[in-house]
C-alpha cells in the first residue's frame, strides 16, 4: 500500500441536484472527499445516502445532474470542464467499475470488443488492443482467455462478467479506480474473489481506489480510509481502524451496530440506525454501548483478514 502524499482526487463542497426549476432537488449537499495517489477510500452509507451520485459526479455520468463545487483530478478542475477534457479523463485517468455486471455489459457485443474500446478510441491498434485485452483477462483469472475473448456476456457467469467489467475499467491504465458497489450483485464467495482481485490490481498499478459500498464487512479489509455519508452529507471521515474502534458519530456507531456478527448473541436484537442516532440515553444508551463494543470486536477480528 503505497502512501503517496499526492492528492489524486479532491472533491470540495460538491452539490448535485436533479431536475430544473421548481422541480430541482439537491441530492448531495456540499460534500468533501479526498483520495490520495495509491490510497483506498471507502465511501459508505445506506441506500439513498448519495454515495453513488457523488462517485458518478466525478465523471459527470448523469447527464441530467447539475453540479456545483469543485472536483479536481490531479489538480485539474472537472466541474464545468469542456466535454473534450471529460472524455479524455474517462477511462484513461479514471476507471469505473459498475455494480451489476449483468446490465453493465452490452448484450449484443462481444466482450473482447467492449474491453478493447477504451484503447481503440485512443488510437491503439486493434492487434495491440486485443493482445493487451487478453493478457488482462488472464491476469484477472479468466481461463481460456484467448478463446473467451470473442464470447458474449451471456456466456459468462456473474463473477466472470465482473472481471470483464474490471478489465474494461483498468485497461487504459487509469490512476483512479471508482468501484460502485462492485460486489453487491455477486455471491458471497465470488465477492471475496473479486475484492481480492481489485486489491491486487490496485496494488500492482498503484491506483487509488474509491470504493462505494453499503457493506461494512468489506470495508474493513479493503479500505485505508472511510468516509461515511448519510442523506447526501458527510457524517465523518477517518482511517479505517479508528473508525471501527471509536466511531465519532452516533450514526456511525449505529451502522456498525447494525452489522450482524457471526458470534453475536442472537437473542439481542440488532439495533436500527435511527434508534442509536435519536435516543442515546437510557436503555438505548446501554444498547448503544454494547453495539459499540460489538463493533470494536468486529474490527479486531477483521483486522488481519483481507476480505
Amino acid at each position, binding site marked *: 500500500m503505497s502512501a503517496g502524499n499526492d492528492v489524486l482526487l479532491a472533491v470540495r463542497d460538491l452539490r448535485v441536484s436533479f431536475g430544473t426549476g421548481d422541480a430541482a432537488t439537491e441530492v448531495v449537499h456540499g460534500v468533501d472527499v479526498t483520495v490520495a495517489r495509491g490510497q483506498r477510500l471507502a465511501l459508505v452509507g445506506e441506500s439513498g445516502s448519495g454515495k453513488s451520485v457523488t462517485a458518478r459526479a466525478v465523471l459527470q455520468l448523469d447527464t441530467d445532474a447539475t453540479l456545483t463545487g469543485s472536483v479536481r483530478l490531479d489538480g485539474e478542475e472537472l466541474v464545468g470542464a469542456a466535454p473534450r477534457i471529460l*472524455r479524455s479523463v*474517462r*477511462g484513461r485517468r479514471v*476507471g469505473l467499475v*459498475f455494480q451489476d455486471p449483468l446490465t*453493465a*455489459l452490452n448484450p*449484443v457485443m462481444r466482450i473482447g470488443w467492449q474491453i478493447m*474500446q477504451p484503447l481503440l478510441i485512443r488510437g491503439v491498434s486493434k492487434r495491440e488492443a486485443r493482445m493487451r485485452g487478453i493478457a488482462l483477462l488472464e491476469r484477472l483469472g479468466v481461463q481460456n482467455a484467448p478463446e473467451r475473448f470473442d464470447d458474449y456476456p451471456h456466456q459468462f457467469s456473474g463473477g466472470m462478467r465482473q472481471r470483464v467489467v474490471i478489465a474494461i475499467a483498468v485497461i*487504459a491504465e487509469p490512476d483512479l479506480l471508482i468501484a460502485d458497489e462492485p460486489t453487491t450483485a455477486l455471491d458471497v464467495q465470488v465477492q471475496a474473489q473479486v475484492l481480492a482481485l481489485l486489491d491486487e490490481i490496485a496494488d500492482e498499478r498503484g491506483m487509488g481506489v474509491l470504493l462505494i459500498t453499503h457493506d461494512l464487512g468489506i470495508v474493513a479489509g479493503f479500505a485505508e480510509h472511510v468516509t461515511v455519508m448519510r442523506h447526501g452529507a458527510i457524517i465523518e471521515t477517518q482511517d479505517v481502524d479508528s473508525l471501527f474502534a471509536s466511531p465519532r458519530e452516533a450514526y456511525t456507531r449505529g451502522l456498525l451496530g447494525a452489522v450482524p456478527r457471526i458470534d453475536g448473541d442472537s437473542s439481542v436484537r440488532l439495533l436500527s440506525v435511527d434508534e442509536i442516532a435519536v435516543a442515546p440515553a437510557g436503555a438505548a444508551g446501554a444498547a448503544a454501548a454494547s453495539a459499540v463494543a460489538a463493533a470494536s470486536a468486529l474490527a479486531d477480528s477483521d483486522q488481519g483478514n483481507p476480505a
Partner: protein
Amino acid sequence: MIRYIAKRLGLSVVVFAGLVVLSFVLVQILPGDPARTAAGRNATAAQIAAERIKLGLDQPLVVQFVKFVGRLLQGNLGTSVVTHRAVLADIVQVLPSSLELVVCAMILNIVIGVPLGVFAAYRRGKIADAASRILILLGAALPVFWLGLLLQLLFSSTLNWLPLYGQLGFGQHVRSMTGATTLDALLQGSPSLFWSAIVHLVLPTVTLSASFIAVVARTVRSSMVTTLDSDYVTLARATGASEFRVVVRHGLRNALIPISTIIGMQLGWMLGSTVLVESTFNRTGIGAYTVTAVLQNDLYAVIGSILTVGIVFIVANFLVDLLQLWINPRLRAGLTPRAPRMTPQPLIAAEVAS
C-alpha cells in the same frame, strides 16, 4: 438456434396454410357462379351443369379443397375473368413494379425514420424531440390516399416540379424485361429513361413511405430511449467514448432488434398500401391490379393477390427472423425467446403500441 429457425418456419407454414384455407373460403362465398361464367352467358342449364361437373364443383367441399391446394402448389391461381389469362401470369407481370416502389419507399423509410428516431431519443425532452414527435404524429395520421393527391396538387399541378402520374414520361416506352421500370431502363442501357423512371418514382415513394416513416421513427425512438438509459451505455460513456460513438456503436445495435422486426412487418404492409397509391399515380402494380379485380368481381384475381401479398409478408417476416439471429447473439444460443408480434397491426401506418 435450430429450434428457433424450425419454430419460425413452422409458424410461417401454419400461417400460409391458414391463408390458403381463407382463400378457399372466400372463393366459396364470393357471389357469382363459376360454372355459369365459364359456360358463357347464353348457356343452357344443361351446359352449365356440364361445366359444373367439368370444374369439379359437384364434388364434396373437402375434395374441392384438396384439389384447390393441389392447383395452388402447382402455381395455378386460376384464370382471370377479365383478362382471360392465368392469374399467376398477370401477377408476375405487375408485381415487380410494386416491388420497385416498395423498395424505394423502404429505403426512404430507413434513411429518414431511423436517424429521426435516434435523434428524438437522444434529445429526449428537448424541443427537437417535441418537433420530431409532431412530425411523427402528422405522418401517422394523414391518410395515404389524400397525401398522394395533395402532393400531386402541390408539386405537379401547381409547382410543376414533378410529373403528375405514370411511370415514364409521356410517349416514352421501355422494353419490359423485369417489369420494374427502373431496372428495365437500366437493362436497356438508356440513362434518360432511367432518370425519367426515377423522377416518376419520387411522389409515389414519398406518399407511400410517409406514414411508415412515422411508425419507424416512433419505434426507434422508444427503443433507443430504453437503450440510452441502460447501464452499458453509461459504461461506454465512462470509457471516454464520444457521444456519437456511444449512441450509434454501443446503443443502436441493441435497438435494432425491435426495429428490424417492425421494418420486416412494414414490408408487407407497404405492399398492401399500394392499393391506395398506385391508382392515384397511374402505376401498374399489384395494388392497382387488386383494386381493379375487386371492382370487376374478378374472383380468382382477388384471391391470387391476397395470396401473393400474404406470401411476401410471410417471407419478409421469416427473413427478418433470420436477421434477428445475426443481430442478437442471445438468440443464437437459444436463450431469449423472440418477443411475440402481437400488437394490433397498423395498416397504412399509425400506432404500434411499442
